[in-house]
């Protein structure tokens, strides 16, 4: 009896199934292997663009900022910042064990804590070496380089999940922005020797925050599952 009812239900919905299969056949989609390849290419492309912009601004236009200092100081800040950036990127790109991506708490935690952790590590590590003096440089160069480096990689990262987040696209976009900003922080850290808190807030933290806000705005429009994707 139950089977026959089930069969009837199946028959009544058969048209819909055929419609879905026909529409799906008309719109081919990427396999898992192709999707992974696309993800790798987009992330690698973003990294390449970031490196190019860094080379252009930091080395060609503004020139290398070198001051005599122990290699342990930039090495330590680099390792800490790279660890934070790695976690932020893994959270923004990866989905964990299920299809719905990271939970709201994870994304909020990364979005809020990544800039705080980067700043705290930079100040803490530099304080050990007594390198917290403010500089006459206001930080606009750092801000400019970081923003110039972040735009294209953020767009590439958002492209990896376009129209695929049914729960919290703004938060995911913000996490992506912060992840890109954190990667930019690592490179800026190599270039800029200043560790004064005001300079750091203006030149290093502000671009991470701005990229996070940009990611949230773009993510809301682009990452969300919609009937007609934008």
């Amino acid at each position: 009896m139950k089977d026959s009812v089930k069969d009837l239900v199946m028959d009544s919905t058969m048209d819909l199934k055929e419609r879905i299969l026909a529409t799906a056949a008309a719109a081919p989609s990427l396999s898992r292997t192709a999707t992974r390849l696309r993800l790798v290419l987009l992330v690698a492309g973003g990294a390449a663009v970031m490196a190019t912009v860094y080379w252009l601004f930091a080395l060609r236009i503004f020139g290398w900022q070198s001051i005599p200092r122990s290699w342990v100081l930039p090495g330590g800040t680099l390792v800490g910042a790279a660890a934070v950036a790695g976690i932020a990127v893994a959270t923004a790109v990866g989905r964990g064990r299920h299809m719905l991506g990271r939970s709201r708490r994870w994304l909020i935690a990364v979005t809020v804590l990544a800039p705080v952790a980067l700043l705290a590590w930079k100040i803490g590590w530099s304080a050990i070496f007594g390198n917290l003096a403010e500089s006459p440089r206001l930080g606009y160069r750092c801000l400019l380089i970081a923003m110039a480096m972040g735009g294209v990689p953020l767009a590439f990262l958002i492209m990896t999940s376009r129209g695929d987040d049914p729960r919290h696209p703004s938060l995911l976009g913000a996490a992506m922005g912060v992840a890109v900003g954190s990667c930019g922080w690592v490179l800026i850290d190599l270039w800029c020797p200043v560790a004064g808190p005001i300079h750091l807030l203006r030149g290093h933290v502000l671009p991470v925050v701005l990229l996070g806000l940009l990611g949230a705005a773009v993510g809301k429009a682009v990452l969300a599952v919609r009937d007609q994707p934008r």
Partner: protein
Amino acid sequence: MVTAANTSLRQPTGGLDACFAAGVEVVDRSRRATFEARMTGKCELAAEATEADAAMDRYAREGDPKDFACVIDLLQPRLLGYVRRQLHGDASAEDLVQTCFLKIHQHRGRFNPGAAVLPYAFAIARRLLIDKVRTDRRERGREHEIFHRPPPRRSGPEDSLAHRRALARIESVLGELPHHYRDAFVLTAIDGLSLEDAAAVADTTPTALKMRTHYARAALRARLGDDLEELLR
């Protein structure tokens, strides 16, 4: 069940205690039967979900339309039921489910091995529903119409008159609950999702969802009395 109860109550001859004991036994048996039926239903749903996950995994890897057809077969009745309930039988329910499956197809390459497709499908359907409500609200200005409209007649063969009436009673009370309580109750008690899956769909923790379901159930019980469990059966 009534016949069994009558028979059991007629049989004892050892006074009030024996009669009471027999009554308790009948009630216990009835509860056990209900529990077993529910557990069997849950096991069937869980087995279907696992089969759908495996089929989706194969589809993500190989792209064989037969696997996608299998996913549709396994998920479509539940998804369509969910969307129809939310839209109160609105004719666009099928279109919405179609869009939902097309999204799954479109992003099949991002399906992780070992992931669950059911909460993903429900989350997409929920997002599309929210968008639809917003669009309708914007375009036609019918703010409370979709979620608070009385349910029209259903035509599916599984909808018996009693079932329709029961659901109509529950839905009319559900309509008065806050949205997140209603969502939690519908996903777990009516659509049969596990706590973890429903929490993933509603983007909250299983503990919070359990609390919401509890509050929704308490509110429903306050309105419907002890008939609630009977109605949900």
